[in-house]
């Protein structure tokens, strides 16, 4: 009897696992069919359903961005593409669609320095893994260099190179940490404005057209303190999407 019960539990858990793994594929495919049929709102709803279930992949956010772009929801589309780009920064398709939507809306494309572009090539998770791997390699090489009785030149060169790689990885990790600390904020509401103070009747500071990319400085209740170039103003949290990707 005990064995039967165990067997039943095993079968049930396997089937539950299978259902759980198949479900996102089905919904994803259904969303694609809706998109192909021109039913973009339905496609967005299905993608949102997957996101609400906790799924997080660049493909999901990319396709959602496409559907929103077809609905002319510029702000939400840009937010979705940016999230996809955070999950896969080297995907050319995502960057192309993001640029396309920005151009169509007449929004300026943010310019980044070579250093920022280089450090932005990997996701925070990838930088962390790289940093740990390089750290182990560096430690192993340095230990070997110390232990081998007669100091070997190639070992010295190897650990020096590993140290250089470690510094780069640490810089990348620090950059990723900084990006996580001050996440991107995308304006999703038409006519939103940044104000001088977190009050509804505060003085207008600068315009934030729908789809504008800002950087979060702090959050206080229903208001976000955001940075745009050198200006820092307040904007209602309901007018924006904060892009936070699980680490």
């Amino acid at each position, binding site marked *: 009897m005990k064995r039967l019960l165990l067997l039943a539990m095993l079968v049930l858990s396997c089937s539950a696992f299978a259902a759980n*793994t198949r479900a*996102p*594929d089905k919904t*994803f*495919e259904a969303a*694609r069919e809706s*998109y192909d049929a021109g039913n973009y709102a339905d496609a967005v709803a299905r993608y949102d359903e997957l996101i609400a279930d*906790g*799924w*997080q*992949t*660049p*493909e*999901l956010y*990319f*396709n959602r961005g*496409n559907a929103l*772009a*077809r609905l002319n929801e510029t702000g939400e589309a840009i937010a979705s593409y940016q999230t996809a780009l955070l999950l896969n920064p080297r995907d050319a*398709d995502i960057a*192309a*669609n993001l640029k*396309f*939507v920005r*151009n*169509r809306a*007449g*929004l*300026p494309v943010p310019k980044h320095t070579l250093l920022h572009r280089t450090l932005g090539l990997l996701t925070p998770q990838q930088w962390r893994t790289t940093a*740990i791997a390089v*750290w*182990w390699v*560096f*430690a*192993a090489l*340095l*230990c070997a260099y*110390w*232990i081998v009785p007669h100091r070997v030149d190639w070992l010295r060169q190897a650990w020096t190179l590993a140290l250089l790689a470690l510094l780069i990885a640490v810089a990348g990790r620090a950059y990723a940490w900084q990006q996580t600390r001050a996440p991107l904020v995308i304006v999703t509401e038409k006519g939103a404005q940044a104000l001088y103070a977190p009050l509804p009747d505060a*003085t*207008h500071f*600068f*315009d934030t057209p729908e789809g504008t990319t800002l950087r979060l400085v702090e959050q206080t209740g229903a208001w976000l303190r955001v940075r745009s170039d*050198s*200006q820092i103003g307040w904007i209602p949290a309901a007018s924006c999407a904060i892009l936070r990707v*699980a*680490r």
Partner: protein
Amino acid sequence: MRNLLYIAALFCATSAVAMDVTMEINPRVLRLGESAMGKITLHDAPGAPPPRLPALSGFTVESIGREQSYSFNNGERSSQVSYNFRITPLAAGDFQIGPFQYDTGSGVINIPAIALQVLARGDPATGSHAQHLDELMFVTVTANPDVIYSHQAFDLVLNLYTQPGLNLNRNVSLSNFDTTGLSLTPFEEQSPTREAINGTLYDVRHFRTRATAIASGTFPLQPHLQVNVIFPGFFNRVETRPQTVESKPFALQIRELPSEGRPTSFSGAVGQFSFDVSAKPLQAKVGDPITLTLRIQGRGNMDAVSAPSFAIPDSFRSYDARLVDQQPNAGLKVFEQVLIPRNASVSEIPAVSFSYFDPERQRYETLVRGPFPLTLSAAGAASSAAVIQSPNPATPAPTKPLGHDLVYLKHAPKHWQQKTTPTPQATAIRLAVNTLPALALIAIFGYVRRREHAERNPLEILRRQAPRSARSALARSGALAKKGDVHGAAQALSDALNQFFGPLLNLPPGQLSADVVCQRMRSNGLSEAQCAALHEVFSVCDHLRYSGSSAADKSADSTRDLERITLQLADLLPACQKVSK
């Protein structure tokens, strides 16, 4: 009065067409005995001869150097050379410096005159008779130009007037500034000037913002400036006291854009603009994309400038114009519009117009560019177009993909990832993974240091190992004594003495004797009683070792002596080790 600036060289490396010359003098109001700084700047005139000021009646002029700078903007190189001079007035009065002419050899450039006011030093108006701080400084608000229309970008300037002798620090903050209905850029401080008002001299600091009025009407402005006045304090120290200066009331009048004569193509641009359109290629096949580049540049509310719209005939397939370049500082926006001719009957791209309101002329302006003649051939081989042309020329030709659309959807990912929050176990593992190499490095480093140290100091290692070796030999001695091997035990005891005191006192085995050891240990601070006990250990050990094995083995006294001195030595070793340190 027109003076001529002398030109030293006839040859000039650059064309005079792009050349410009400006003159500045600051301050323009000064007291007798003070000097003003002047600057003549030659723009885009490399190699041009240096300008020389002629003798100015009532002034002494002294050259104080030359500055040169280069800049690159949009691939164009520009340069400017400034010649600085100091002007010192010799008499009070109102003067005029200039106008001048600068002869470049290929043309003459006029430099307008600058008025200069020189106040007499004993003039009571220049001295301050004010009793209160408020009388020593005040704030005004000015707008430039005087006539402003809604959506027009204009300069709003806060002017802080202070009488000479009143010291303020650099920090100035703004309050009570109601900017409802106005859009402002951050304030920037301009170069200070000096002005005489009713004969009183003032230093003036200017804070400028670029403003745009969103609506028409009257905007009362009366901002307050918070300044910090510096007073001399005791013991050569200075004290800073904050002071709020209320500006004089200023009513900003904003006019409504006139509805009369408003073109249909007007989309809100206010200012002065230039408009250029280029179309490429003008010889194409049906279905080929033709790109219209619309370039709008000027001074005005660039934010409101949008792509000019024009009536596109049905013979073209079109895409929305998109912004491809934007340079707010240069006042430039560039749009691109893609048109695709549907058939070969199209002969031109229609004219494109851009309308704006010019506040200086107070009227709407419309700039029209085009039409652009177009030579089209049917899709496919152009040479055989006449032979194989479709009977229905209106049939749309197949178009090529332009790449001006969204990239299509992506396939489902192979591995679905879920948002996860790190568990305590994962955090612990991550911490361990990060920490382990560091611990390994520390351990290996310590080991290597010890190894290297041992290689350099073998005696030190022996000394460090001496207590352990001695204890081991003592244990061996005790075990042999229990077995009844007195001779062997005595030998082990001797080994213990050698292994302990040899390295400790740096003595070779042959020189190790009770006298030497006791003498050295006594000098290290071992007590007399302990020295005596040590002496006894040595003598009993020697006695047992050299007394003959059989006799010693049979003696019960020998065994007791051995056990006693073994214990005695075990007690002495820590004391000896302690004093030897």
